[in-house]
């Protein structure tokens, strides 16, 4: 009897999970489906779900009009670069906060997070002027630095929570064995925190990949990543939804594939420390 209830509950839970999952995924699915329609089919009422003449024409048009590889390459460098740079800075910062906290550590953590509460447009002009002075406008280095700074509070917070889970005694033991600070972080702490670092890395690549305020406002022709590629297909005066969908699909495909293959790592990282 007990077993049957459990199984029924399991079935309900599974169905509910699938329903929620599909609901969340539906806009992406719809974008992908629309990218295979003609412009007329894309605005058809009632909407066409699966039964239409599938076409690759939109992809051909987008390929012909835009240099997709250049945008993709910029996205890879900017998302990857800002995340790696962020991790390099955040690991020592999170280490000090987790293992040698001061009276002010909690305040500093909160203060760092508070920088995320400011609307980005509020600092657009100061950052733009700094970029002009430093000659960083429309450069990948500039974007790497800005995105790193924007995501740094999140990286430090995530690493801090992972590091807090690691018993301080292990590090003490390493110190007693004569490990230097650098060795302690590099050879003792980091290997133990690999799952946490990996999920932080993945989450921040996704955040940086999707960032669409700074990447649009600080770039022009050379450093523009895939967000600018999508923006170039959006039009208030003309129905180009199928082409826009094709461009969006091409822009999210790499990160979608990365997310698919690393979902185990992502889920593990995100729920790390949630259950004690």
């Amino acid at each position: 009897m007990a077993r049957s209830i459990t199984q029924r509950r399991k079935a309900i839970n599974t169905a509910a999970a699938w329903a929620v999952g599909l609901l969340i995924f539906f806009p992406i699915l719809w974008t992908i489906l629309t990218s295979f329609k003609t412009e007329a089919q894309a605005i058809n009422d009632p909407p066409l779900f699966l039964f239409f003449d599938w076409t690759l024409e939109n992809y051909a048009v987008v390929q012909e009009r835009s240099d997709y590889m250049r945008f993709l390459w910029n996205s890879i460098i900017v998302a990857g670069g800002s995340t790696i740079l962020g991790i390099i800075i955040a690991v020592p910062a999170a280490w000090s906060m987790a293992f040698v906290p001061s009276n002010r550590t909690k305040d500093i953590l909160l203060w760092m997070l508070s920088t995320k509460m400011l609307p980005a447009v509020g600092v657009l002009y100061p950052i733009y002027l700094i970029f002009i002075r430093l000659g960083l406008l429309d450069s990948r280095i500039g974007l790497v630095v800005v995105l790193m700074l924007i995501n740094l509070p999140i990286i430090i917070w995530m690493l801090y929570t992972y590091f807090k889970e690691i018993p301080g005694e292990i590090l003490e033991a390493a110190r007693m064995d004569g490990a230097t600070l650098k060795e302690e972080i590099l050879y003792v702490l980091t290997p133990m925190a690999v799952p946490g670092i990996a999920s932080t890395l993945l989450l921040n690549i996704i955040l940086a990949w999707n960032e669409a305020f700074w990447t649009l406002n600080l770039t022009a022709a050379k450093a523009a990543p895939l967000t600018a590629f999508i923006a170039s297909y959006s039009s208030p005066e003309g129905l180009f939804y199928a082409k826009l969908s094709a461009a969006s699909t091409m822009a999210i495909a790499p990160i979608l594939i990365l997310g698919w293959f690393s979902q185990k790592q992502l889920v593990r990282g995100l729920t790390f420390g949630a259950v004690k």
Partner: protein
Amino acid sequence: MYSKYAFRAAATLSLLMTSSAFAETITIATVNNGDMIRMQGLTDDFTAKTGHDVEWVTLEENVLRQRVTTDITTNGGQFDIMTIGMYETPIWGKNGWLVPLNDLPADYDVDDILPAMRGGLSYDGTLYAAPFYGESSMIMYRTDLMEKAGLEMPEAPTWEFVANAARAMTDKDNEIYGICLRGKAGWGENMAFLTATSNAFGARWFDDNWTAQFDSKEWADTLNFYIDLMNDAGPPGASNNGFNENLSLFQQGKCGMWIDATVAASFVTNPDDSSVADKVDFALAPDTGLERRSNWLWAWALGIPAGTQKEGPAKEFIQWATSKDYIELVAENEGWANVPPGARTSLYENPNYQEVPFAEMTLKSIQSADPLNPTVEPVPYVGVQFVAIPEFAGIASQVGQEFSAALAGQQTAEEALEKAQALTTEEMEAAGY
């Protein structure tokens, strides 16, 4: 001795002059509209003629506006040419942010630019951006539905006729709505339409002392007329409809009439996209007998930011893209229906173009809009569907939300106008008017 120095100086000078004529790469910011996409496809012709390369930065209209505004106000120098509209050009020209286009060569024939366009893109008589294409607004209507309703559309109808026709054409059971109008909030969305419409009803944004006029009878008449008409003959959810949504409805045969940008004519008559392509005709935007019609005037124009290092090549590009030759080039490659409209007088004198079904009405619409005298009563501002002051975009976006909410039935027209009056007064006082 002196001659030797003079020779060296002359040699250096000539070297400098030739080096300035070297091939450069210019960066152009533009929007994703059909005519601009065609221009990008034809850039090879410009490169072949001048040797200069072009890098395109294409962005969505609102993103573009924010992006180029940030760049020009900080002298960022990211773009050598910016695609801007009639709203920005006089304001930026006044601030000295744009390179004046007062030295265009004779063969460019600047006098050929339509006077309304030239006036709207100038400040103090100096042209600051060259029109790439221009548009007004007009009525696009279904000839079959008009006939079925037993009516005949005059070339220059009144709002009374349009409202009667819309109600007569409406057949909600079969999803046919007599009229589709913009309702989506935004200074370039519902406010462009409603500001232009208010001109025909004798309303205005400000009096000569910059006092807001939303408490006037004329504005109440405008808004009540619009909301009543849309409730009786408009599609459901109209408060979310902008240009694209209405275009989609019209192409699917759900609108009897649609009053919107003249550029839409090429979309609704294109049989590839439109199910009603062969049943569409055009008329001037309506009036109420007060000598002002409800049509707007807009141009997408190319301007050169004052900070650019490549002014010479940028000017060469503008001369190429807005020339008579460019129109011929597009006609050769894409046909006369696809040439950029509304910029040059000579285009409308061209017999090939006169055969295009919407050419005549587009020209008449453009000619009937006067950005310098947009309203019945005198006003201190320039602009038909906008007020060319920097504060307008912010204020009109808020007013647009109030009007959109009134259309959605969340408040009455009177409440919306009261709020519009209060917020406009407050913003204008804060801005020092």
